[in-house]
């Protein structure tokens, strides 16, 4: 296949949006005053479902300037509970209003039997789970009328009955359903450390034409395990995985996540700029920082911090 046609078939035909960051409340004022200064924004879909306040006003303003991607944390695609159709209706309605470049969520489950943990919980990776998730991905894609983009989560435990590795599960899921992949290279780094596999091998084994987006973030070193805290600069090992992923995919959209101890916007942009250097083989030498207190994976407090802030 010629290089040009190979690239055209990649990313499921979705665009390479360039470099973006998560749209977070502490940066609203700066963004409104100085403009986005990034190629695109990712939003947490649930922050804007049933939210008609200032955050939505800011989102509508920036969406008129740069592309938006909707990234969810509540689809619970791997749950044994029935799909939450009320949630999916709201998600589709929001997408109808925002016209996002794509909609993503995680290969995970968040709850069952009506209890929501609000965590991104790992799946048992076996044939039965794969059939279950593939069926639900197809239902969601039919309902949304677009491919679903699924992210590899960070994990700290593995199920005893798992019979395949995560890259195989994701690859087969993507091939069977036509869904896209959101490759979080920090999550690969975290899970590789926690479960003792080779992060480079993980990325090499994925179906690269299905990778639509990359996530970047900084974890915390808690001794035996790394925790996906989204509260620190991206470490060198993650930048190297990022460069590899960009090389293997031929170039996809990349996004920096920073959800706790959120830095000022200029500092966030400086961290994002390191991505361009990494693509040229120059890697920032930040280490994974050790934790100084309880380390929280998937922080969501920023979700509600806007409650009492002035518009």
């Amino acid at each position: 296949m010629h290089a040009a046609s190979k690239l055209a078939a990649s990313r499921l035909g979705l665009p390479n949006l360039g470099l973006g960051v998560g749209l977070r409340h502490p940066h609203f004022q700066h963004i409104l005053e100085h403009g986005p200064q990034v190629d695109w924004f990712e939003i947490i879909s649930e922050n804007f479902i049933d939210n008609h306040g200032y955050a939505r006003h800011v989102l509508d303003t920036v969406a008129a300037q740069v592309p938006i991607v909707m990234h969810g944390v509540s689809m619970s695609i791997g749950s044994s509970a029935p799909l939450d159709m009320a949630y999916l209706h709201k998600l589709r309605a929001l997408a109808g209003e925002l016209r996002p470049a794509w909609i993503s969520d995680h290969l995970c489950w968040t709850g069952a039997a009506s209890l929501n943990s609000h965590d991104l919980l790992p799946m048992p990776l076996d044939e039965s789970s794969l059939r279950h998730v593939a069926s639900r991905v197809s239902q969601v894609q039919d309902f949304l009328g677009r491919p679903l983009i699924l992210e590899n989560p960070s994990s700290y435990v593995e199920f005893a009955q798992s019979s395949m590795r995560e890259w195989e599960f994701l690859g087969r899921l993507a091939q069977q359903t036509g869904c896209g992949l959101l490759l979080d290279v920090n999550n690969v780094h975290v899970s590789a450390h926690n479960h003792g596999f080779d992060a480079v091998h993980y990325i090499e084994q994925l179906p690269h034409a299905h990778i639509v987006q990359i996530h970047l973030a900084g974890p915390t070193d808690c001794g035996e395990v790394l925790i996906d805290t989204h509260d620190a600069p991206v470490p060198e090992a993650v930048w190297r995985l990022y460069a590899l992923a960009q090389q293997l995919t031929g170039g996809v959209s990349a996004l920096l996540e920073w959800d706790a101890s959120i830095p000022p916007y200029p500092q966030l942009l400086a961290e994002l700029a390191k991505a361009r250097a990494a693509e040229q083989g120059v890697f920032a030498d930040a280490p994974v920082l050790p934790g100084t207190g309880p380390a929280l994976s998937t922080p969501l407090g920023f979700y509600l911090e806007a409650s009492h802030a002035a518009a």
Partner: protein
Amino acid sequence: MQQPELAQLQAWFLTAMSCPGGAAQGTTLAQQHFGLAPEQVLTQPQRLSIYADGYVLRLLDCLQAEFPVLRKTMGAELFDFFARAYIWRHPSRSSTLYDLGAGFADFLAASQPRDHDAAGNAVLQFPIDLARLERARGEAGRAPGLETRAQPSMPDGYAGVDALFGDPGLLQLPACTRLLALSFPVRAFWEQAQGASAELLPPQPAAGQSFVAIARNRYRISMHALERWQFHFLQSASVAATLQQCALQAANATSLPIDQVLADAMLWLPVAMAAGMVGRVDQQENEKKADLHRPFRESGRS
């Protein structure tokens, strides 16, 4: 041996991670309920504590963000104690974290001792009132407001001479307005405490019934102390009502003469509307909506 079903594994995992007391008690409980030992489910069962600890910390983080002044006022340790108990007693059943704190004030009310102070208030009534205020502020910030409505319907569209002598038509609270009847004057305390450090909080005010309207105008949240008749007046406008209907309701609730309430309302209404507490019903918009939903035979076109 047959593999456990996905539903059984996930129920086991949820039980183990969300049990009060953490992963050690959780895995014991999960084993009792589902007959699966931790080693049968996970290859590194000791790491389940990362999920169990994270479950509480993540939701605690959200409650701390939603109730910042309450936490400063109660003290971090006492607030976190009640917040953890709330998380375990009332696990989230919603896809959105916006619903998480909805029952926290009621939980505090139900959790306190039955003792009352000399004025007959529950011992923890002040924190409960603060919780209700902070929750209402959050709801007011997210609910649909008047910002996207056409200009004539904006709250400051009823002003000047018209405001004094004209008929405002039907009045209705915007979906973002919240009305609170409280046992302490918490509004002023909250405004002073919000920017203060935990060490320099203003003194807790003396108990006394207070009425507050939380309104949103151009995405800015404002809080307004109300007189008792104003509270009942606005409460009457939770469904579309005329000025006279609202005034009559307020007069009945407060035993004030209707003429006095009407006169005071005529003077106060422009202020309330400008602040976004109450708006005029957009008749044209309502008629358009009614037309859309009216059966064909009733539309006069048959």
